C-alpha cells in the first residue's frame, strides 16, 4: 500500500518536473510571466512531493516491509533503527531517490531567493535543474524502482512494480541486511556528504548555463553562485575526508586512500572545483578569465556526472561499485547530452565573454592563480587518464591492466608539492602587479625561518634516529617539508601582521583584532585557515606515505614483535557472539616502548552471519604516530597462533587534524555574510583597487 503510494508520488513528481520544463521554456519564448511563475511553482512543488516519497520509503525500511525488494536487500530485523533509516542510501535505487530529494531541496532553496535583478536567469535555472531531476527520477521509475515488490508467480519470485497476473505478494521473513562494511558511522555520513557536494554543483552549473543561454555574460552568475560552489566544495571535501577515515578504520589495510578509480572519480570534481574557487576570484576582482570560469563549472559538473556514472554503471570494477545495473546506457546518454550541449553553448557565446582588465604582470596574483589552475588541471589530467586508460587498453589490446598507486604518486607528487609552495606565495602577491622584489621582501623572513626549521628537524633526526636517512624517500621528504614550512610561516606571518596592524590602529587587544579582521573578510581568512589545514595534511601525508613501516608475524601467546621502537606482545584471544548475530574474534596485545608498558590494544575481526568478515584494527593513536595492529583472519587464526599485521604510521594524525581545520576554514569562508550581493561588480572592483588588505 505504502509502496504503491510512494511509487505514485514518484510518477506525479516526474510529470510535474516535465511540466515545469515545458512551462518555463514556453514562458520564455512567449514572454509570458505567468508561465514562468507556474514553472517556478512546479519546481517548488517537487520538494514536498519527493519528501513524501522518501518518507514512504523510510517508513517501509523502518517497519520491516520485506515484500519491498529494496527493503529486503538493505535491511534486516537485527539492525538498529538508525541503520534502517540510513539504509535509504545503502543501495542503488534508494540512493538515486536520495539524490533526487537532495537535488530538489537545493533547487527549491535557490528558487526561493529574491530574483529581482536576475529575472532572466530564473526560467533557465529551473529548466536545467528540472532536466537533471527528471533524468534521475526516470532512472528510479524505469530501471531502479525502490518501491518494486516481490511477487510469487508460477515461474518463481521476482520483483515487479505492478502486480503480475495470478501473482501473490511474497513477504520474506527477514531481509538480507546492509553490507557490514557499510555499518560504520563514517559510511553512514560519507555518502550523503558526497552526494550533497555533487548535487550542490548543479546550482552553479544551472546558473552558468542560464548565463550562456540568455547571453547575460557579465559576472552576475558568479556572484550569485559563489557561495553555492563553496558549499558544494565543503560537502565534497567532507565526503572525501570521511571516506578516507572510514577506509582507515574499517578496511584494514593501514591506509586511507588507495587511488581506486571510484575514489578518483569523486576526487576529480573536487580538483576542478578547487581550481574554480581560485580562478573565480580573478573574475570578481579583475573581470578576467570569463571563459575559463565557465569552462571550469561545466567541467566540474560533467565530472560529477561522470563519477556517478562510473560508480553505478559497471564500466569500471571497483570495491566501491554498486552491483551491475541497467542504468548505464541511460546515464551515458544523459552525460553525452550534458557535455555536448554545454560545450556547444560555450563555443556559441565565446566571443561575448571577453575580459575587462588587461594590465597585469607575470607575478601578479592573477598569474599565480592561473599557475595554480594549471597544476590542478595537471593533476586532473593524470587522474582522468589513469582512470580511462584501462578501458583503452582493454578495447584495443584485449589486455586488462591496473593503473595503481605508483603511477598516481609519481605523477601527482611534484604537482601537489608545487601547489603547497604556491599556496604560500600567491597570497603575498598583489592583484595586477607584483615583482620579484616585492615578493622577495615579503617572503624572505618566513623562508629563512622555514630553512632553519628544516635544518633543526634534520639535526634532530640525525641524533635521534639516523637510520631514517637510509629511507629512499628522504630527498622528497626534505623538499616537501621545506615547502610546507615556508607556506606555514608565510601564512601565519601574514595573518599575524594584519591583526597586529589592526590592533595598533584600533587599539583593540590582539585576539579581538584578529577575530574582527577575520570576521570582516571571511573568505580571505577562511582561505588562510584552509591553507593551514592543507599544510598540516601535507605533513601527515609525507609522514605516512614516506615513513610507514609494516611487519607481519604469526605469533603464539606471549610472543613479541618489534616495530619502529615499539614492542607488541600477543596476550590472549577470545571469541564470543555479539547480539546482532556476528561472531567476534578478539585478540589482546600489549604495547611496550623502552621496556615500559604503554597500553593494550584489541584488534579483532567480526564474522557476520552472511559469512562476510570485517577486520577492525586496534590503533594506538598519538600526534607523533599511530600503531595500527590488525588481526588478519585471512591467514587463519587459531587459539595458539594468531597472525598479526602491524603498521607504524608516523604523523597520520596530522592529516586528520589538518582535514578538520580545513573543514572549519571552509565553513568560515562559506558562512553567510550580512551584506548581501547588492553592491555592484564595478563598485567592488574599485574598492579593491584602493584596498590594501584584499
Amino acid at each position: 500500500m505504502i509502496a504503491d503510494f510512494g511509487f505514485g508520488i514518484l510518477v506525479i513528481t516526474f510529470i510535474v518536473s516535465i511540466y515545469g520544463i515545458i512551462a518555463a521554456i514556453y514562458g520564455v519564448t512567449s514572454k509570458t510571466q505567468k508561465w514562468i511563475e507556474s514553472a517556478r511553482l512546479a519546481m517548488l512543488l517537487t520538494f514536498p512531493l519527493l519528501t513524501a516519497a522518501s518518507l514512504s520509503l523510510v517508513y517501509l525500511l523502518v517497519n520491516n516491509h520485506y515484500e519491498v525488494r529494496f527493503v529486503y536487500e538493505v535491511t534486516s530485523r537485527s539492525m538498529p533503527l538508525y541503520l534502517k533509516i540510513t539504509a535509504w542510501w545503502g543501495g542503488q535505487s534508494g540512493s538515486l531517490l536520495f539524490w533526487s530529494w537532495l537535488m530538489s531541496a537545493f533547487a527549491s532553496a535557490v528558487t526561493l531567493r529574491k530574483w529581482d535583478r536576475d529575472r532572466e536567469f530564473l526560467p533557465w535555472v529551473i529548466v536545467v535543474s528540472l532536466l537533471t531531476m527528471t533524468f534521475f527520477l526516470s532512472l528510479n521509475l524505469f530501471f531502479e524502482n525502490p518501491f518494486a515488490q516481490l511477487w510469487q508467480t508460477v515461474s518463481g519470485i521476482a520483483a515487479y512494480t505492478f502486480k503480475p497476473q495470478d501473482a501473490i505478494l511474497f513477504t520474506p521473513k527477514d531481509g538480507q541486511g546492509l553490507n557490514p562494511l557499510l555499518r560504520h558511522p563514517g559510511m553512514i555520513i560519507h555518502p550523503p556528504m558526497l552526494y550533497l557536494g555533487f548535487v550542490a554543483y548543479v546550482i552553479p552549473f544551472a546558473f552558468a548555463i542560464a548565463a550562456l543561454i540568455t547571453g547575460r555574460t557579465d559576472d552576475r552568475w558568479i556572484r550569485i553562485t559563489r557561495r553555492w560552489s563553496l558549499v558544494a566544495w565543503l560537502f565534497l571535501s567532507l565526503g572525501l575526508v570521511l571516506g578516507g577515515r572510514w577506509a582507515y578504520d574499517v578496511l584494514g589495510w593501514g591506509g586511507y586512500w588507495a587511488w581506486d578509480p571510484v575514489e578518483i572519480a569523486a576526487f576529480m570534481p573536487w580538483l576542478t572545483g578547487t581550481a574554480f574557487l581560485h580562478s573565480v576570484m580573478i573574475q570578481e576582482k579583475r573581470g578576467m578569465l570569463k571563459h575559463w570560469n565557465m569552462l571550469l563549472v561545466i567541467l566540474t559538473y560533467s565530472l560529477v556526472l561522470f563519477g556517478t556514472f562510473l560508480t553505478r554503471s559497471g564500466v569500471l570494477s571497483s570495491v566501491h561499485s554498486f552491483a551491475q545495473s541497467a542504468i548505464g546506457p541511460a546515464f551515458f546518454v544523459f552525460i553525452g547530452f550534458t557535455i555536448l550541449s554545454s560545450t556547444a553553448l560555450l563555443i556559441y557565446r565565446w566571443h561575448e565573454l571577453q575580459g575587462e582588465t588587461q594590465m597585469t604582470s607575470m607575478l601578479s596574483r592573477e598569474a599565480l592563480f592561473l599557475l595554480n589552475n594549471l597544476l590542478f588541471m595537471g593533476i586532473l589530467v593524470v587522474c582522468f587518464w589513469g582512470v580511462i586508460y584501462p578501458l583503452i587498453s582493454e578495447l584495443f589490446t584485449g589486455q586488462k591492466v591496473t593503473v595503481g598507486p605508483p603511477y598516481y604518486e609519481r605523477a601527482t607528487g611534484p604537482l601537489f608539492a608545487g601547489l603547497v609552495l604556491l599556496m604560500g606565495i600567491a597570497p603575498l602577491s598583489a592583484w595586477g602587479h607584483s615583482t620579484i622584489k616585492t615578493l622577495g621582501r615579503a617572503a624572505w623572513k618566513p623562508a629563512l625561518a622555514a630553512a632553519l626549521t628544516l635544518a633543526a628537524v634534520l639535526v634532530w633526526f640525525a641524533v635521534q634516529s639516523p637510520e631514517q636517512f637510509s629511507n629512499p624517500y628522504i630527498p622528497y621528504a626534505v623538499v616537501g617539508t621545506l615547502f610546507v614550512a615556508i607556506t606555514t610561516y608565510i601564512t601565519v606571518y601574514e595573518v599575524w601582521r594584519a591583526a597586529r596592524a589592526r590592533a595598533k590602529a584600533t587599539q583593540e587587544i590582539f585576539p579581538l583584532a584578529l577575530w574582527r579582521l577575520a570576521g570582516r573578510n571571511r573568505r580571505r581568512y577562511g582561505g588562510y585557515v584552509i591553507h593551514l589545514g592543507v599544510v598540516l595534511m601535507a605533513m601527515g601525508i609525507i609522514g605516512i606515505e614516506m615513513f610507514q613501516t609494516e611487519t607481519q608475524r604469526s605469533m603464539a601467546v606471549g610472543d613479541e614483535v618489534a616495530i619502529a621502537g615499539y614492542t607488541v606482545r600477543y596476550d590472549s584471544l577470545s571469541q564470543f557472539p555479539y547480539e546482532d548475530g556476528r561472531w567476534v574474534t578478539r585478540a589482546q596485545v600489549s604495547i611496550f616502548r623502552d621496556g615500559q608498558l604503554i597500553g593494550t590494544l584489541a584488534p579483532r575481526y567480526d564474522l557476520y552471519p552472511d559469512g562476510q568478515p570485517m577486520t577492525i584494527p586496534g590503533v594506538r593513536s598519538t600526534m607523533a604516530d599511530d600503531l595500527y595492529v590488525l588481526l588478519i583472519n585471512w591467514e587463519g587464526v587459531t587459539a595458539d597462533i594468531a597472525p598479526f599485521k602491524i603498521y607504524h604510521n608516523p604523523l597520520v594524525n596530522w592529516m586528520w587534524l589538518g582535514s578538520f581545520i580545513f573543514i572549519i576554514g571552509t565553513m568560515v569562508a562559506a558562512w553567510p555574510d550580512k551584506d548581501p550581493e547588492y553592491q555592484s561588480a564595478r563598485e567592488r572592483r574599485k574598492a579593491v583597487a584602493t584596498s590594501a588588505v584584499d
Partner: protein
Amino acid sequence: MKRPLWIILLTLLFTALTGSVALAQEPQPTPSDDAVNAIAKELFCPVCENTPLDVCPTEACKQWRALIRQQLAEGKTKDEIQRYFVVQYGARVLSEPPREGLNWLIYVVPPVLFVIGAGILFSVFRSWKKPLPEIAQPEADTPQPGGDDNYIKSLEAELRKRD
C-alpha cells in the same frame, strides 16, 4: 532463529580450529611474512579488482602468497617472481602497466598535455599588457615588511572605509 546459527558457527569454528592447529605445528617456512609481503604489496590480485595481494583476504590470494613464498625459497628474485606472475596471470597483476607498446600512452599523454597547458598559459601571460612601473600604484601593492607604516596607513584607510 538465532540459536541454530550460533551452533553452526560454533561447529564451523571448531573444525577450523582443530583443522588449522595441525597446520600451525608445522615449522615456520623460511622466507618471512615480511619478505613475502614486500613482493605481494606491489602485485595486484588477478581476480578481485584493485586489491593489492598483501591485504587481499580471499583464498585465491592466500595461494598466491604461498606461491611467492615458495618461489622466494627457491631463490628467485623479485623481478623473476613479477615476470612469472605476468606470464601466468597477465599484465594486470602489476601495479602499473608495463612500459611497452600501447601502454606508453599512459606515461606520455599526461606530461604532453601538461606541457601544452603550460604553453597556453605562457602565451596568455605574454598577451597581458604589462603595467608600467610608474603606473602601478604602490598603495595597491603588497604590504612590504620593511614598510609596516605604509601598510598600517593603508589598512587604517581600509578599515575606516569599511566601518
